[in-house]
Each structure stands twice: as C-alpha cells, then as structure tokens.
C-alpha cells in the first residue's frame, strides 16, 4: 500500500516540563490551520492534546526530570491520530471520579479526561494507563 502523499507526522520526545508541550502544540495548530480544519475541530484537538500532555507530565511523570513524554501526531486528509506516552506508574482510567457527579462537581481537578473523550472520536488507554491514543475524524471530510 502506498503512503498517502497528504499525510504527515509530528513526533517529539519532550521533558517533563509543562512549557515543553507548547512547541508540539504550536506546530500541530499551524498545520491544521493551513489545512483548513474547522474551528471546532481545531479547538477540540488542541484541548485534547493540551490536556493529554499536561496529564502525562503532571500526573504520569510527576514532573520527574529523569522521565520524558513521547508524542506522535499522524494526520491524513480524513482524520488525526494522536498518541501520548509517559514513563510514570500508570493509572486506571476507570477509577477517575466522575467530575459531573454532584459530590464531585466542585472538585478543582479531574476534568481533562472527560474533555478529551468528548472532543475526540475515541480515546483509549493502554500500557496500564501510561499510553493514551486518541483519534478524531475531520468534520468536513468528504
């Protein structure tokens, strides 16, 4: 099978510092805007990547300078696929409290995963929660 000539990949390994994710995000946004993805699509992808990278650095690697985060974004004219891998202890996504439940609605944390699941077509965790893989279909793909 020949490779789609319009497909592209961004692959970066970043340190466990929150600012480090910004360059990946900026590069991704520039590409999506150049390819005229819709405003809503770009907003959702940006939010999902931001939340995923922050979770990997903050909750996964716990800001450990000896650990890194690996980010891969693969885009085709129809969809975007993003995978974020940390080197932390992992976690069980099923055990994250439902932040919309009345007893948790005022909790200051815990909304990132819910936002990722809503803005992306699918979000899956593997490797004991150390890898999150997300996909979004382009809204105006023919």
């Amino acid at each position, binding site marked *: 099978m020949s490779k789609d000539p319009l497909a592209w990949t961004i692959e970066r390994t970043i340190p466990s510092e*929150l*600012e480090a994710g*910004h360059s990946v995000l900026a590069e991704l946004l520039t590409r999506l805007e150049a390819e005229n993805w819709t*405003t*809503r699509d770009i*907003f*959702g992808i*940006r*939010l999902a990547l*931001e*939340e995923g990278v*922050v979770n990997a650095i903050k909750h996964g690697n716990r800001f450990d300078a000896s650990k890194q985060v690996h980010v891969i974004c693969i885009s085709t004219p129809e969809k975007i696929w993003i995978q974020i891998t940390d080197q932390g202890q992992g976690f069980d996504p099923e055990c994250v409290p439902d*932040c*919309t439940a009345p007893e948790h*609605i*005022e*909790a*200051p*944390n*815990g*909304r*990132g995963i*819910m*936002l990722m699941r*809503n803005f992306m077509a699918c979000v899956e965790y593997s490797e004991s929660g150390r890898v999150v893989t997300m996909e979004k279909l382009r809204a105006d793909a023919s």
Partner: protein
Amino acid sequence: MAVHRRLQLSEVGDVSVIRFVDRKILDEANIQELGQELFQLIEEEKRQNLLLNFSSVEFLSSAALGKLITLDKKVKAHGGKLKLSNIRPEIYEVFAITKLNKLFDIKDDEADALASF
C-alpha cells in the same frame, strides 16, 4: 491598589467587571497568577459582585476551570455573586460537558449579566 497583570477591571455600580488579558488561558503559571489575582479581588479588595466577561478568551483548559470553581466558592463564602458572560460556543461546550454550566450563572452578554445581579 493591587496590580492586575492578567485582568482588566472596571466598575459598573457595585459590580466589578473583569476581562481577561490572555486570549488563551492554558499555561499553568499564567493560571496560577490569574487565580491569585481573582482571589485577591475577594479576599483583599473585598469586592463582592464579580462579572467575568469572556469575550476575549479563545481557549481555556481544565486547569482554568479549577480556578473558576475555587473563585465561585470564595465569592459565595463572602456573601457575593459571581456571573459569567460572553462565552464563545466552543468554550461554552467545555462548561456544558463538565456540567459547570449548572454550577455557574452564565449569561449571553454583559448587559444581561449586569441586569441579573
């Protein structure tokens, strides 16, 4: 008078109308600073009624939501009211997904919000 780097403040009657300097509220350090400035309005400047006008905000992350929830608690604890307005559709969706549109009093525009205090 406290210095506000992340906020633009104006007064309409007894309501403090707040606009955000940053178009994107996502950077952790900026969110910490923003939170401190907002909390200061309540705890040090003793303002009671706050209206957050989001017209300039294009993007915000879940970390920013956490600060708004804490602000809401502080405002209520001091007997005041917090309202939000001018939220663009994509950002309103963030509030709706997390059901925070039920926790916060969100109005379409500043005039609606001011009339509801």
